[in-house]
């Protein structure tokens, strides 16, 4: 989805996010910025339908507008010439991995990208990722395209091939990031993950997004969203993401009923 927000487009850097609110009764949801176009003053975001708000967003048409767009929020990704960087994107996480891969490439890194999805049809940004990577590896869970299996197995192959990896960026579903972090830890490969916990204000005011990193409580909105994957307590994050499961279902049911009514 492309959103017109010129001031944010001008300011934003890789790794930062925005908060959207559709209407007066809507919730505030954080979404990472995938790309921006300074001349057109636009931002690109990629989302998956996971609840009522994203379902509603999927129904939006050209020239519709959000009541509120806030950003850019969070720390930008720390981009340096690390040497060889592996960028891993899973599902819609590829959208977040893309600007990081592009920035890493521009800074002179050798970029190896690994992207994966459940099946071929829902794989996104393959061409874009290829353009900003020295090597692109694809995996699908069902084997319909590329490697048959998870991105973590592809990473293991890269490590086993003797490639010297200086840093890994892993963005995707929490279980994926957890597996990647566990995989790289014994090799001592620095691994950065981007966390997307529940947020409300997203400016450091409420603490909804607290995560445990190296046994210290951090707010993902102002201290993150990127953290050292070897220090993150992923189980806590998984639990906290489930906090409103029932209400999310309830809101979705209500929305579906209202849609059918129309």
């Amino acid at each position: 989805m492309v959103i017109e927000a010129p001031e944010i487009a001008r300011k934003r850097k890789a790794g930062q996010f925005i908060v959207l609110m559709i209407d007066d009764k809507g919730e505030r949801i954080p979404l990472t910025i995938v790309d921006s176009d300074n001349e057109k003053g636009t931002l690109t975001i990629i989302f998956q339908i996971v609840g009522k708000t994203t379902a509603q967003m999927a129904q939006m048409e050209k020239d519709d507008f959000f009541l509120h767009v806030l950003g850019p929020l969070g720390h930008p990704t720390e981009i340096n010439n690390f040497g060889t960087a592996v960028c891993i994107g899973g599902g819609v996480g590829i959208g977040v991995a893309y600007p990081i891969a592009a920035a890493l490439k521009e800074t002179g890194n050798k970029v190896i990208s690994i992207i994966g999805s459940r099946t071929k049809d829902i794989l996104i940004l393959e061409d874009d990722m290829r353009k900003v990577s020295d090597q692109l590896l694809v995996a699908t869970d069902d084997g319909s395209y590329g490697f048959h299996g998870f991105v973590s197995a592809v990473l293991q192959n890269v490590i086993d091939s003797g490639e010297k990896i200086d840093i890994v960026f892993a963005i995707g579903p929490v279980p994926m990031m957890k597996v990647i972090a566990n995989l790289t830890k014994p090799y001592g490969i620095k691994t950065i993950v981007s966390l997307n916990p529940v947020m409300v204000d997203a400016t450091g005011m409420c603490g909804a997004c607290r995560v445990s990193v190296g046994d210290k409580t951090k707010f993902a909105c102002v201290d993150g969203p990127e953290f050292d994957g070897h220090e993150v307590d992923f189980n806590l994050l998984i639990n906290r993401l489930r906090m409103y499961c029932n209400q999310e279902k309830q809101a979705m049911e209500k929305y579906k009923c209202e849609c059918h009514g129309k």
Partner: protein
Amino acid sequence: MENKENTEKKEKVPRQPMPEQDPMKRIYNFNEVPYGYTAELSITEAKRCIQCKKPSCIAGCPVDVKIPEFIQQIADGDFIGAARTLKETNALPAICGRVCPQEDQCEKVCVLGKKGEPVAIGRLERFAADYERESGNILIPEVAPPSGKKIAVVGAGPAGLTVAGDLIKLGHEVTIFEALHKSGGVLIYGIPEFRLPKEIVDAEVEYIEKLGVKIITDAVIGRLKTVDDLFAEGFHAVFLGVGAGAPVFMNIPGENLSGIYSANEYLTRSNLMKAYRFPEYDTPIACGKNVAVIGGGNVAMDSVRTALRLGADNAYIIYRRSETELPARAEEIHHAKEEGVQFKLLHNPIEYIGDENGWVRQIKCIRMELGEPDDSGRRRPIPVKGSEFTIDVDTVVVAIGTEANPVIPKTTQGLEVNKWGYIMANGETGETSREGVYAGGDIVTGSATVILAMGAGRKAANAIDAYVRSNKKS
């Protein structure tokens, strides 16, 4: 002598009680608890004021409201006149009439209070302001000729709205930058509907806008643009009234379990996002049956009373000192007790225990006793060894204070902060270490009251006016 006779004669009329919603009904709704004085009650109460020749009440008010003057107008039945007198020095009277701690300010020094009960200044202020708003007869005061100076105000809370209201009347061009999607700051996200209806805040913000103030919401200064960017855009001065936005936790085991909120989050969900009307509104909130609120201030009372209205069977206040030290206003404690809040005093949480899904189920508490007075002058709470026990809960709200949000200090060059991260500012002028940058409210003092933030805003507005008029650079 004349005063004394008056006192004796007028003291026969008692302070008029505030009509209120029945406690057993109001715990099932979010409607405002006190109904407000009627015109009749207001006149009776206003006539209790003895119109001291040297009134001490004005000095008791952080924004110097002309108290005897507006009370006389009410006594004379000139309610609109009273509202306008209030607005000469206080841009937000309907709000102050509700949330000011009058018992520590104007009413504390009222002469009548020495022998009996002080004049109900706050209730009269509320009445006059409500009367004007409901009548629709709102006067937009004349604004001074344009000064050609542009001022940026960061934060649309009590301090920022006051600064903006004052400076626009002095002829300056004023733009407020607000991080949230709605203006009002703590008045919108923090104080619940049952204590301060949001339509009142909206009306007061609308009034500030009618004066000509431009408000830009969804603008996080420090991220979207910095203070330096604002100067580069042509603003001549910047006021920082961003509040003490970051929540404090106790850093005890289990504090990140699901179901444990900061008061900021709990109240923001309920008030700003209207989670109490879920699923009509999209934002959810945990509606616990056994809710514990940690802390004893006004924010703790707001949280625990919100929990009751969200359907809690047991709503506890857990506070480490005794009743005497509770920092909340007497009125809030009284209302909480009427509504059935259970006070666990001299108790302190030491650990949270969760279930297999990571949801909080129990608080492990320790009993406390009071020792010698500490730096704050209050007796220091000391844990009683071996007194640990558990309380069953499914929702916890931590309301033990806030600290400075570091976004602005970190992104503004030359802005000095103290060891707690609060911005260093002159108490009389709001001047900071950076020329042209002023600050006031909670980001300077730490968590305080709406009216103190407004008082700081008033002083800063005067200093900013003097600064931009004398400034040759433009």
